[in-house]
């Protein structure tokens, strides 16, 4: 999977939840969205991208992917 494409997708999701939810809740909501709607290989790829530094991920996206990584451990 193309990490740049996945990064853009996570940032777009984060843009919605950043305004819909409070800061703390947004992290949960973004990672929850990824959990509910993303195929596991996409989740693995974005987690791996985050582990490599997460280039392009905004702050909320990074926190959400970190939460996702933690949940999948």
């Amino acid at each position, binding site marked *: 999977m193309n990490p740049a494409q996945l990064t853009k997708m996570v940032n777009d999701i984060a843009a919605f939840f950043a*305004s819909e939810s409070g800061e703390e809740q947004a992290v949960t909501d973004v990672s929850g969205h990824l959990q509910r709607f993303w*195929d596991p290989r996409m989740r693995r790829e974005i987690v791996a991208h985050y582990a490599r530094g997460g280039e392009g991920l905004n702050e909320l996206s990074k926190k959400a992917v970190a939460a996702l990584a933690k949940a999948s451990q």
Partner: protein
Amino acid sequence: MYAIDHHDLGTPASSAVAPVTLEIDGRPVTVAEGTSIMRAAGLAGCSVPKLCATDNLKSFGSCRLCLVEIEGRRGYPASCTTLVSEGMKVKTQSEKLGSLRRGVMELYVSDHPLDCVSCPSNGHCELQNMAEVVGVSETRYGLAGERHEHLAKDASNPYFTFDPNMCIVCSRCVRACDEVQGTLALTIQGRGFESKVAASQDESFVESECVSCGACVEACPTAALTEKPLHFMGQPERAVTTTCAYCGVGCSFKAEVKGRGDAAQVVRMVPNRDGHANQGHACIKGRFAFGYATHADRILKPMVRARISDPWREVSWDEAIGHAAAQFKRIQQQHGKYAVGGITSSRCTNEETFLVQKLVRAAFGNNNVDTCARVCHSPTGYGLKHTLGESAGTQAFNSVMKSDVVMVIGANPTEGHPVFASQLKRRLRQGAKLIVVDPRVTAIVRSPHIEADYHLQLRPGTNVAVMNALAHVIVTEGLVKSEFVAARCEPAAFEKWCTFIKDPRNSPEATESMTGVPADTVRRAARLFASGRNGAIYYGLGVTEHSQGSTMVMGIANLAMATGNLGREGVGVNPLRGQNNVQGACDMGSFPHELPGYRHVSDAAVRTQFETRWQVPLEAEPGLRIPNMFEAALDGSFLGLYVQGEDILQSDPNTHHVVAALSAMECVVVQDLFLNETAKYAHIFLPGSSFLEKDGTFTNAERRISRVRKVLNPKAGLADWEVTVRLANALGYPMAYDHPSQIMDEIAALTPTFTGVSYDKLDRLGSIQWPCNEAAPQGTPTMHIDEFVRGKGRFYITEYVPTSERSNSRFPLILTTGRVLTQYNVGAQTRRTPNVTWHSEDRFEIHPDDAETRGVKEGDWVGITSRAGQTVLRATVTDRVQPGVVYTTFHFPESGANVITTDNSDWATNCPEYKVTAVQVVKVSQPADWQERLRRRYEPDANHV
């Protein structure tokens, strides 16, 4: 000529309920108040002769054949225009009435050809029948007088002829064009003997404003307006009620057929006057453009090839299916079980889509199933599920007849959903107000006797900003329906939303510079919508196909809740679905994260139900969506795809990207009527069956489940559902169904909203709107009446986030896309019909100012370049589009509209952002070579009916 099995009652049913009892020919009859004597007599079994009356048109009283005697009244009133009253005593037959009717009929016959035996309407001509009923076989006036027989026949329309020699000037065609279709293209021109039916300004039918809906042809009592097949195929012998396979209106039709078995042929498709979605109306596509089903391009033999560069080799069904199963199994053995998947089609039946997703989940053992709804209405599912609790529209189509204000957003119903558009126009002519939110001046903005009160001509990509501005006005000017919100919605979410929406950044004044819509227009439109008693919102792909598609759907739901416009007739949130079974394909569990009935795959209790019934463990993780499948193919983790009835190469964005993905796969199986664009990259081709060749059901945009009935034998030998059954069995997963009714029984057993649905009940009721279960055994026309499906309605914050697809100096124009009436989606069906008479190529609309600066004139070839690719189209210079915005349709593969669309997609669902592409346009001398090759390959065949 109406359907051959239609019993016409002469005038429409009354909407009143109070009973009235009268006596007709000595028999007591009880009917609803407001019923005509003619209809009451018909219901009582003593039909009155008639010519100018038919039960889908208002009574007219011109033919004077339906005269009756009423005790205590002088004269002989027309039974079509006289309403019943309590205690009335009516005689429909008497010596005097017989004499009067014969006199009238003799006049008609004196100016009508009497060669009935060779007439295309022979046996179904109302003039012929009525002459027999009233006892006229000759005329006292002879045939020597002046007649209309010298008038020329108009055969210009590819589907029907107009022969004025046969016309009795009853005005039924003119009234049908007015009352049923709402185009007002026909008129009675001239006076007295010179009176004649004329299209537009006495033009030929094909050159006139006529939209070929066929309402006039169906209304004609003689052979003046007749379908051309009646002239060379003769009369149909039987009628089968079925459902149209074009748009999401889901019109009910009578397929009129001649012959049986393999010799059966469809002569006509006639709209079903008892059809619940269309109420007897049709459009050019459903009514006439069914010739694709028998087109010579149909592939009738399964084919295989080892590599996509090899020629196809025809094989038996067993070999093709065995080969497909072996390839899928090989890929899964070598690359894991997640390396294959399937795509269901919104053009196939509920039963077929159910089987494909079942095959993927049970036989492939993963959730890599998706549907073409991904690229159209997936944001509707997400947005409405979260706000209201159900992934579907809230109303029946006829709800619009109780609307006071209608807001049409990003939809072009006269082109995309023409039968609903006719109903909408009917309501608008009764006085309902109209707000249109669209970047283009569509026909609904301004057409005969219709003009939108407000047209919010926004810049593409700014929907959410406009919606927020409308809501801002409603909240800040105290127009919220507080009682509704307090009783029906989550208070904390509402308060949070109010705080957000009241912020000055959402005001019309603040958003004007982004949206291009004058603040004052937004304010007036918001006030109008909020102040109407019943406000209804209808929307299309102009809402969903954006990077904020899901946000916009939520914004629409927010607006409906804030104004109290949900839970009764006349209001609601109404997605206009593009294809016939988009709703059904979604209902049937075609999305990779949901089992049938929109239940998440992670729900263990739901999975257990399916596992018990299907006898196989199911995956708890979501699978790949279509665009994700492409990405996975390119990284080598997804290598096998089963595509039923979907041309992903032509319909999905960024064609080059799709080509690369398909080329990277090891086994692509395409099941379709035609060797479509995707099939160029397929290894196995399985012939599909048209909607005329199978049993099943479609679910339309109003959640209405309607039967599809087999009219012809499958031309390739198998219906689509039978192919999936065979493939599943070949994969080692047993499927055993003898008839699609058994599949529906399984759907009903597993899906709470379908519990009460069965073929028997569908036959009995005609159609059913889900939910249909113990709580609603007859179905649910209006949803969310007392409470929302999710309990309390939930407001969501809809912050406007501009798309990353921006115009700049390199790509200064914004391209948006749409449809035309005569073509359908990627055109696979309609391009193979005479509909190409009206639209034989996709045109590129450009504003006169933008055209002038580029030296582009009407009809010039223009090169269009985006960040994704380039194509060449012929220009139409028009102020339908605003400066800075260009537009095209996507019906022809050689147009390459999706060569230039980008990978941008909706944040929640990955629905592509087809509606916003930054482009540059330059004048060029000719199309690209690849376009010319495609153009030659798809040379339209206008002669095939």
